[in-house]
């Protein structure tokens, strides 16, 4: 096992899939000559050449449509959108075409497409460049939406996504690119399933449901809570669509308490959807109301002080856990 960055893990997945399958290619804005805005594709142009590593104009609508068309034509495109914020210019193609074709045309066309996009805040990029949109896309039947949190998952899930016959939105987090984690040696072939969540830490007192960068913060919170005798189970959903309902319901039945921790906005989003699922399927097991930790309900401010205040923290999670876990637990 080696320790590599999330960024390197992604690049390895792309490389290996491109070597494995001639039909796999990557396209996007500034991914070739520039090496990718977050340096994920660095060196791929030199290795594979212009045919398979394609710089595109700044035209999200047509490059998304082109990736869809290329998938229809038998290729396995990986499209990098520079940030998820720009995907809004391509939302029509993603929602109205990529997500719809297989169903709307009676199962005839398949769109084996991966759209990679960074999201999230925390780097003072301001209101238009610090957003979480997984809830929007997670709403759409016909898409898969995944958000790996570790280098191990980043590599294994990206490889799965490339091999998946469906359109997969592969949402990365800008602050995760440089984190490091263990990944099997390059000669070890592995993939990680797209539709399963994972228990990152077992616990008895409360279930923290989380994903992407917040999975790390949640684990840190769980670590601190353990010192006070509170054992939190941390579930990294990994996939927003489809959602691994069995996993979270089983956990809730065990712990009877839930804290949902996400970076995105509170209203009508992933967390509220999860809360509804839990109340619908595990109400009789609940010992306390679900707590929901989110980013502040404001456009992201630029100021460092304000941005910090807008993002959910470890302390927020600990506070939420303590609000519903009796103090005498674990004593």
């Amino acid at each position, binding site marked *: 096992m080696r320790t590599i960055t999330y960024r390197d893990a992604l690049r390895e997945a792309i490389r290996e899939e491109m070597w494995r399958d001639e*039909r796999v*290619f990557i396209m996007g804005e500034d991914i070739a000559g520039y090496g990718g805005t977050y340096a994920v594709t660095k060196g791929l142009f030199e290795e594979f050449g212009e*045919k398979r590593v394609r710089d*595109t*104009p700044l*035209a999200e*609508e*047509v*490059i*998304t*449509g*082109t*990736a*869809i*068309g*290329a*998938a*229809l*034509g*038998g*290729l396995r*495109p990986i499209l990098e959108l520079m940030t998820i914020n720009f995907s809004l210019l391509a939302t*029509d*193609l993603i929602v*109205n*075409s990529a997500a719809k*074709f*297989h*169903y*709307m*045309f*009676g*199962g*005839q*066309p*398949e769109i*084996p497409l991966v759209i990679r996009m960074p999201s999230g805040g925390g780097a003072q990029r301001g209101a238009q460049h610090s957003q979480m949109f997984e809830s929007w896309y997670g709403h759409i*039947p*016909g898409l*898969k939406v995944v958000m790996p949190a570790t280098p191990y998952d980043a590599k294994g899930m990206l490889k799965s996504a490339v091999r*998946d*016959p*469906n359109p997969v939105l592969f949402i990365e987090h800008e602050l995760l690119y440089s984190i490091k984690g263990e990944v099997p040696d390059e000669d070890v072939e592995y993939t990680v399933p*797209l*539709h399963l969540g994972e228990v990152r830490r077992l616990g008895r007192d409360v279930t923290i449901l989380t994903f992407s960068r917040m999975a790390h913060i949640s684990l840190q919170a769980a670590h601190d809570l353990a010192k006070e005798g509170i054992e939190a189970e941390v579930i990294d959903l990994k996939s927003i669509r*489809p*959602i*691994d*309902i*069995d996993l979270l319901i089983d956990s809730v039945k065990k712990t009877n308490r839930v804290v949902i921790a996400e970076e995105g906005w509170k209203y009508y989003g992933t967390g509220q959807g999860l809360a509804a*699922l839990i109340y*619908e*399927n595990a109400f009789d097991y609940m010992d306390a109301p679900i707590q929901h930790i989110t980013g502040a309900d404001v456009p992201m401010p630029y100021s460092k002080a304000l941005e910090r205040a807008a993002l959910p923290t470890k302390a927020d999670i600990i506070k939420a856990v303590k609000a519903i876990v009796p103090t005498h637990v674990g004593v």
Partner: protein
Amino acid sequence: MAISNATLTGLTRTQLLCMHNMMLLMRRFEEKSAEEYTRGKIGGFMHLYIGQEAVGVGSITALRTSDKILCSYREHGLALAKGMDPRAIMAELFGKATGCSKGKGGSMHMWSNEAGVLGGNAIVAAQLPIAVGVAFSAQYLRQDTVVACFFGDGAVDEGAFHEALNLASLWKLPVVFICENNQYSMGMAVEKAWAVENLLSRAAAYNMPGEIVDGMDAIAVYAATKHAVEHARRGEGPTLLEVKTYRFRGHSMADPAYYRTREEEQCWRSTRDPIGIFEKMLLEEGLATQAEFDENDAKATQVAEDAAQFADNSPDPSLEELYTDVMVDDSSALTYRYERK
């Protein structure tokens, strides 16, 4: 009268009669569709191709079976011309299990892998970026497939049109953009929407050849498309054709077309009917007889009737179909177990 063996623009008598037959099939099929719509057999939006037959027949005659077409929501006629089974199209209009999209698509969503019909798309101009991608795959895989992308004059106003033309030209992709300018985007007259008089300047802006074509003349459409297709197949990139035509009916079944005069419509119908123009030309050239036209008409009527009867007799999709085809794999099964409990 003697029948000439002469050709028109390289088309043989057999091909020309075939084209005639197809134009009549489009017309009779659409008339039948309108009838079934009023009887409540067909629901939703339905946009008829009547008046534009020469565009579909002329252009698709210039394509190979292995070439692909992508269309807007006004695509029944194009799907017929590209070789889709009229029964499967009509059954789709009826929303039946035997429809080409299993009754899940409807009038605006025809598809056939075999015939190379890659959909009617009901989002204006969405088919252009996708057509660019299909053409890209052909180039990447070194196939000599050409993609014909059909859209209305309204699509030209969308950003996707401009992005798509730029990329197709930049990458020299084998695609022919065919704008069916039927004068109105829904109710908006084209001169009120376009800042340019015609699309020649648009083609020039994206550094590709452009041509304005009489869309009521099937032979002219054929010749222009053939030229563009050969250009594309040689790897020289895309072409933009502006094919001027006119829809004889409203935008959709629900459109009384108050935005234009009855006189204008009557004038087009009586003097510019593409079928009439085509027949007149064939007669003048001595390439066909009225009896052959009548025979074609009878055949077309028969096929349309048969399609409607087939559709009517077909079963509705089974309710099990509601949850199938959402994903290619069964990854949604997990969640659906909760949804359908």
